[in-house]
């Protein structure tokens, strides 16, 4: 039956593809007919008309026609989108030099400045200027915030980089708060984000490659990696997958993630994300590839391995012993977050003999008189917790307070005192809830695993939990992220990489980059960097 279904699916996909191809061809042919090949003519008015024809009646399109030269004999126009440009730059560095400075030159020179190269080379005070000849290019760059300068009798136009719009400042990232370490976070502006990274890694090897995705949104993305360290195959594969994307819009890096990940149907994400420049810089230094997307502070990094979720940037800033302890705590918390409810269900429903006798009395007393079986209680409380969490996120801040009071006191306390659920269930769910936020990368997958395990525990007891866990293990072992096994360095085992799994060795002992990710340039620092006291100087006579 599955074969049949998959065959159907495949043929349907193929059909779709064909249709898409035709659509695209149609699109393209239309475009080629209309404008993409259309060159600029030497008539300014004609050019303006054809640009107006494409951009239509956009209210934010501003066309400023003016004339310059010593007698104002050269007519020209600048075109830009209001709000996307830096107005002072346009006024002071484009219009002013043309209109004001040029009045004082003599007639012979004034004839020369009709030449667009001279304007570009000697008059405008702007860092980045390019020439363009097709109308399509002009419209595209205009829409991304550049200013276009058209001049009468010139078959070329100048595209002047003048992007400047309102952005959020570099502030504390909200999702990854830390105690020690840099406080800055990525913003929605791609250029700011690349700058934040570039400021951390000031090396010519640090590469940023630009790409545009999205038929309608034309979203700029940037692939960042360290040349000579990152695996070239991963970079190639990433580019291949990114080029494959053919969709109308990319609004967040989650879209990109959905299009390029290895296991699209898995509940585990095989691509990491972070909002902190130092985290991303650390991953790039380890040989990973990062993808920055315009319009979102979340940067994708890959290849991702499972244990990455348990590592935090702060581990490397604090002292190794405490960092290692916190690592272990995170693993325990993750185990609690997925196993606590199911263990409770299994122990109270199937294996009462496993609970020590004094505890058994307490458990029995608390669940005495409650109307539902343990599975139902746990599942219901789990659902209620998820509802509270969702409500807490979506509601406006002031109302959120009320929700937490209602959630914690009314539902928790009253349900117990009314005898609807046992007190221990509330404790178990609360503990689970707290523990599930310790490992943010696995919070969403953990919520799903929890439900599956509770259902298995309710039907098969401890054996059900074990079956579930082995199933998770099989699934994790079969995952790959850009060629790297998801469970590495545990499976396949690479003993040298265990330095950063259950404990974190001191920084001077982290000699290598992860072997499963990097194939070249594996040593990252010198061998003997352990700080030692200076060798004792031999006493020279007299100096005591």
């Amino acid at each position, binding site marked *: 039956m599955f074969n049949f279904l998959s065959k159907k699916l495949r043929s349907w996909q193929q059909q779709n593809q064909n249709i898409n191809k035709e659509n695209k061809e149609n699109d393209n042919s239309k475009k080629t007919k209309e404008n993409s090949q259309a060159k600029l003519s030497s008539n300014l008015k004609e050019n303006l008309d054809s640009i107006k024809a494409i951009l239509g009646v956009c209210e934010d399109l501003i066309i400023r026609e003016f004339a310059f030269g010593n007698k104002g004999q050269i007519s020209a126009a600048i075109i830009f989108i209001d709000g996307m440009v830096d107005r002072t730059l346009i006024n002071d560095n484009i219009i002013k030099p043309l209109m004001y400075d040029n009045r004082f030159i003599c007639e012979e020179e004034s004839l020369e400045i009709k030449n667009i190269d001279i304007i570009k080379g000697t008059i405008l005070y702007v860092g980045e200027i390019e020439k363009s000849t097709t109308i399509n290019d002009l419209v595209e760059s205009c829409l991304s915030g550049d200013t276009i300068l058209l001049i009468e009798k010139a078959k070329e136009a100048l595209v002047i980089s003048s992007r400047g719009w309102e952005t959020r400042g570099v502030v504390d990232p909200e999702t990854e708060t830390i105690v020690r370490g840099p406080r800055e976070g990525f913003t929605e502006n791609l250029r700011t984000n690349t700058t934040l990274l570039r400021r951390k890694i000031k090396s010519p090897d640090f590469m940023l490659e630009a790409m545009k995705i999205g038929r309608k949104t034309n979203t700029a993305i940037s692939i960042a990696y360290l040349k000579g360290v990152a695996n070239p195959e991963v970079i190639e594969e990433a580019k291949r997958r990114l080029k494959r994307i053919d969709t109308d819009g990319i609004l967040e890096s989650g879209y990109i993630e959905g299009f390029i990940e290895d296991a699209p149907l898995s509940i585990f994400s095989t691509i990491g994300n972070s909002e902190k420049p130092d985290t991303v810089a650390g991953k790039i230094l380890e040989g990973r590839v990062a993808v920055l997307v315009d319009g979102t502070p979340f940067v994708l990094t890959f290849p991702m391995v499972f244990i990455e979720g348990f590592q935090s940037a702060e581990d490397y800033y604090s002292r190794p012993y405490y960092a290692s302890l916190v690592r272990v705590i995170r693993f325990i918390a993750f185990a609690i977050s997925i196993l606590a409810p199911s263990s409770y269900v299994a122990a109270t429903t*199937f*294996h009462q*003999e*496993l609970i*020590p006798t004094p505890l058994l009395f307490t458990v029995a007393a608390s669940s005495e008189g409650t109307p539902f079986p343990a599975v139902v209680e746990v599942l219901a409380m789990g659902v209620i917790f998820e509802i509270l969490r969702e409500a807490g996120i979506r509601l406006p801040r002031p109302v959120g307070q009320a929700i937490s009071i209602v959630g914690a006191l009314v539902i928790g306390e009253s349900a117990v005192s009314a005898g609807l659920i046992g007190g221990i269930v509330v404790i178990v769910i609360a503990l689970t809830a707290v523990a599930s936020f310790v490992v943010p990368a696995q919070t969403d997958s953990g919520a799903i695993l929890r439900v599956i395990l509770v259902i298995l525990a309710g039907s*098969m*007891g*401890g*054996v059900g939990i*074990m*079956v579930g866990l*082995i*199933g998770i*293990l*099989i699934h994790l*072992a*079969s995952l790959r992220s850009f060629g790297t*096994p998801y*469970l590495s360095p*545990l*499976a*396949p*085992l690479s003993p040298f990489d265990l330095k950063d799994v259950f404990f974190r060795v001191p920084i001077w002992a982290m000699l290598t980059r992860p072997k499963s990710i990097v194939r070249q340039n594996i040593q990252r620092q010198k061998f003997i960097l352990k700080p030692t006291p200076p060798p004792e100087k031999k006493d020279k006579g007299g100096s005591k």
Partner: protein
Amino acid sequence: MKIEKGVISSSQLTFMIIGFLQASNLLLVFSSRIVNHDSWLAILVGLVISIPIALSYAALAKEFSGKTLIQISDIIYGAYLGKMISVSYILIFLLTFSIDLRLFSDFLITYIMPETPIWAILTLLTFLSAWAVRGGIEVIARCSFIIIAMASIIILSTFVFLLSDMEFSNFLPVFDLPLKDFIQGTHINVSLYYLEIIIFLMIMAFVNKTEQVRGSMLWGLILGGVSLLILEVRNVAVLGIVSNILTSPSFNAVRYISVAEVFTRLEMFVVIMLITTVFLKVSIMYYATVLGLAQTLHLRSYLPLVTPIGIITISLCIISGDSSMELLHGGMYIWPVFILPIQLFPVLSLFIVKLRKKSKKLGANEE
């Protein structure tokens, strides 16, 4: 045409062999019924005996690197005789697979879930292994390290926690039994778990460094054997003569653990260890069966065989014995005798290959 694209490392082969042997925890009772408290000696002697045979398996794998047992017998014995031999290998794999699964399900039903029908547990376990088998050898190999790390921690920690309950006088008098019984017990040990690593002749072909196969096989065998030894010593020292009567002495021995009267009832860890290692063992055997069948029939992929073989196995498990006692009798008196010749067959193959090579060399010299 390559049926399996995965590649495993030699260390993963070692882990798989260790896990494979640790799963034989359940089979320890077969020999200890016969040799009583000297079973640790039978395990040790069995290990020593099986090392040279295992080395000859490794030598055969080295001779035909990149070829599985089925392909090797095709090459040595020709198309027709080779096929017959292959079929007997596959039959042995399938039967061992189903009997191990049945024994474990029996254990679960006896100790943990007495009211669950056996087919439910069988289906669940077979489904899990089928899932792993469909993932290929790489997935099974990757699971192996985590499983044996957990199992080894459980074996060692239960040993340490039970030290206070151990009576080493339980081992006395040493070797107070007829030689015939000792040989029988050793035979059971050798053929029921040590030489079952014949199954790895199906897997060694996918190891990336062929020259390391020998070492990893040896280490796997020794470490696996030592963990079985630790288990047996623990059981006999804690339980004494009772350990020969119980169905699962490990389960009962660990019940004695009581650390500060808080950590009690730790037998669930035995179940965790058993369920994971048995899963590993069963997946390896399932994989070997399916792959062997696909290679015998010259299929392009083994995936279409996974589901049918799984269903056949479930039925085989159910009809292989009416009761645990019947299985026990079969395991003690019938199965070892039946299985040993086939386990020794690769040694004969190696002998034939070496002989042929020598005669070729001689012939070349004469010319």
